[in-house]
């Protein structure tokens, strides 16, 4: 059973990782705890759902649509809750993004209702047996999409001009600006990328869990934060590994200890990391003092 549970952990971890990547990118370039990220994830799931229902159940259309919609949402977020807010007060952008979180979540409640809605079956269900392990076509699909996305993103960050600009901005705004990086544009693009990935993660989550609700965002945001810290701020590969790690830990604790305790471990990890290893397990790209 343990192998099967590890597969479950992998699935859960993949979605955590996707959320955390966006977080860590945004945190990197903006040094901002962007609370609304979980809600972007939720909006992505709903956009995906509606595209599936309206657009004739083509999952790729839904994924792409959710990605674009969420990238747009990221742009809106920048223009509404980041740009116009006073920069010299460290709390101000945090609170304005909390405001955005509340708005998005409750707009969703208002529009879609406060209940869980089913996500139609879009990937043909088939089961493959590998010895003691059973893997479903849905799981393979989710994992394939998530992995592809992560690899593409990693290549983008490491090997493109924009990727270098993002890394430079993450390390130091002033230096990046001196090197001729347009910091404002980098921030905007980072938000678009992070939000787009969160949107895809939302759709994948809908496929995986069969149901979505307007309230999935907050939990996702908190878990994404834990993964971000675990992986090291601004560290994209770190976030990927840490996401898988947290997914495994949660599934194993749910399977062998108890479901009510599963959150306990996540939050203990959060606290221990904050106190004893603030650079995360894999180091950080930030040079900032704590």
């Amino acid at each position, binding site marked *: *059973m343990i192998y*099967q*549970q590890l597969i*479950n952990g992998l*699935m*859960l971890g993949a979605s955590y990782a996707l959320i955390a990547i966006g977080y860590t990118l945004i945190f990197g370039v903006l040094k901002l705890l962007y609370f609304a990220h979980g809600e972007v994830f939720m909006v992505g799931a709903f956009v995906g759902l509606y595209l599936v229902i309206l657009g004739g159940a083509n999952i790729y259309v839904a994924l792409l649509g959710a990605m674009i919609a969420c990238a747009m949402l990221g742009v809106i977020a920048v223009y509404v809750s980041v740009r116009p807010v006073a920069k010299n007060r460290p709390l101000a952008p945090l609170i304005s993004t909390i405001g955005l979180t509340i708005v998005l979540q409750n707009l969703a*409640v208002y529009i879609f*209702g*406060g*209940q*869980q*809605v*089913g996500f*139609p*079956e879009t990937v043909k*269900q088939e*089961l493959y047996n590998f010895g003691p392990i*059973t893997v*479903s076509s*849905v799981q393979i699909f989710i994992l394939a999409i998530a992995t592809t996305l992560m690899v593409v993103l990693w290549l983008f960050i490491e090997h493109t001009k924009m990727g270098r600009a993002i890394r430079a901005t993450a390390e130091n705004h002033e230096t990046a600006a001196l090197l001729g990086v347009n910091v404002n544009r980098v921030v905007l693009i980072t938000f678009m990328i992070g939000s787009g990935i969160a949107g895809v993660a939302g759709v994948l*989550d809908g496929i*995986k*869990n*069969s*149901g*979505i*609700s307007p*309230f*999935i965002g907050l*939990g996702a945001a908190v878990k994404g934060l834990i993964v971000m810290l675990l992986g090291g701020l601004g560290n994209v590969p770190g976030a990927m590994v840490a996401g898988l790690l947290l997914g495994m830990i949660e*599934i*194993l604790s*749910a*399977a062998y200890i*108890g*479901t*009510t305790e599963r959150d306990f471990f996540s939050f203990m990890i959060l606290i221990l990391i904050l106190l004893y290893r603030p650079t995360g397990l894999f180091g950080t790209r930030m040079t900032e003092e704590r």
Partner: protein
Amino acid sequence: MRPIGNLASSVGLATVMFVMAPTSDAEAAKLAGRSVKIGCQVSLTGKGTEWGQAAKAAMEVAAEEINAKDGIGGIPLELICYDTQTLESEALKTVSRLVERDKVLAISGPCFSSEFETIAPQLDARLKTVIMSYCSAKPGLSAMSKWAFRNTLTSDKQLTPVVEAWVKEYKPKKVVIIYDAEDAVSKAEGAIILPALFKKHGIEILDMLTYRTKDTDYSAQITRAKSLGAQGIGLGSCYQNAAAIAKEAHKQGLTVPIIGGACASAPGFIEIAGKAAEGAYMSTAAWGDDPRPEVQAFMKKVVAKLGGKQPPYSGPRAYDIVFAFKHCIETTGVTNKPSDLYSDRDKIRECLQGLKKFPGVAGELTMNEVRDGVGVTAILKVVNGKYTNIAK
């Protein structure tokens, strides 16, 4: 206090008049005030959405029917409904708002056992107003206060015939139980009622697994159930989670029969679970396929209000509550004067306590000594994406 005999005869009289749809009630004097206020607590958001929506629609249908005639005691019925969000704390807040600000005569609701269990202890000391639930099914709750009523059957009564039929069809030897540790009725079903019934039928319980209401990932539980070799799944679960669990089982290739308790039997279960719902058994406290024309007329109106959806049992039960209230208000000398509010509420309570064979769309209603409904119920099985009553 009125003698019981007198009360019973007036019940009989009202019954006749209800069925014959009287134009006016000769016995009851015209009530004071501009309207009769009845409170209603419904869960329009959260895990109980469908239950609450159905109940609200049904009560509105009842109010429209009543007001289309002569109202209650000659004045219109005013239904004041609040959303409890399926949260205990919100249920408490709205009940005190109904009692203390809106000054309603009686309250229909709350829907959920968790909510009911939270309000009931406050009734004797503070609220002193009838609450009557149209969904709650956890055994033993109405006994908490003389003001607490339910016209539903408790879970144990609902599940007994369903488990029997389920076992007869699928003959499982080993099952797992999965339940929501945060929901009162689901926990009662998962931890107490289902194990007892399974034991009675000689079925081995492999494991009891829990989850939290807000959980969305059930892969760990299903993997465990599968590895243990479960031949059936007993669910103490509301429809949204139940459907997600059924789907997860389906995805992992665990295609074993499912049996669900009171909260699972909403149409939303089938809607969300799709194919995975097929063959599942559900318990219920009412089923609207009674061929009587008034039942069919009611169902038609409610289904129209719900946008074509069948209501779960909260619909018919909530509808009946409004008429039970109407009956008690009109027959016990309730005046509806603000100064008589407390005695009016008490009169309604006494009247409901003695309710026997009161006709309604969910069947005849009789209150037992602990103020829970008694009667027969349906057994629901999902066949071709529809709930079908397979009870004789």
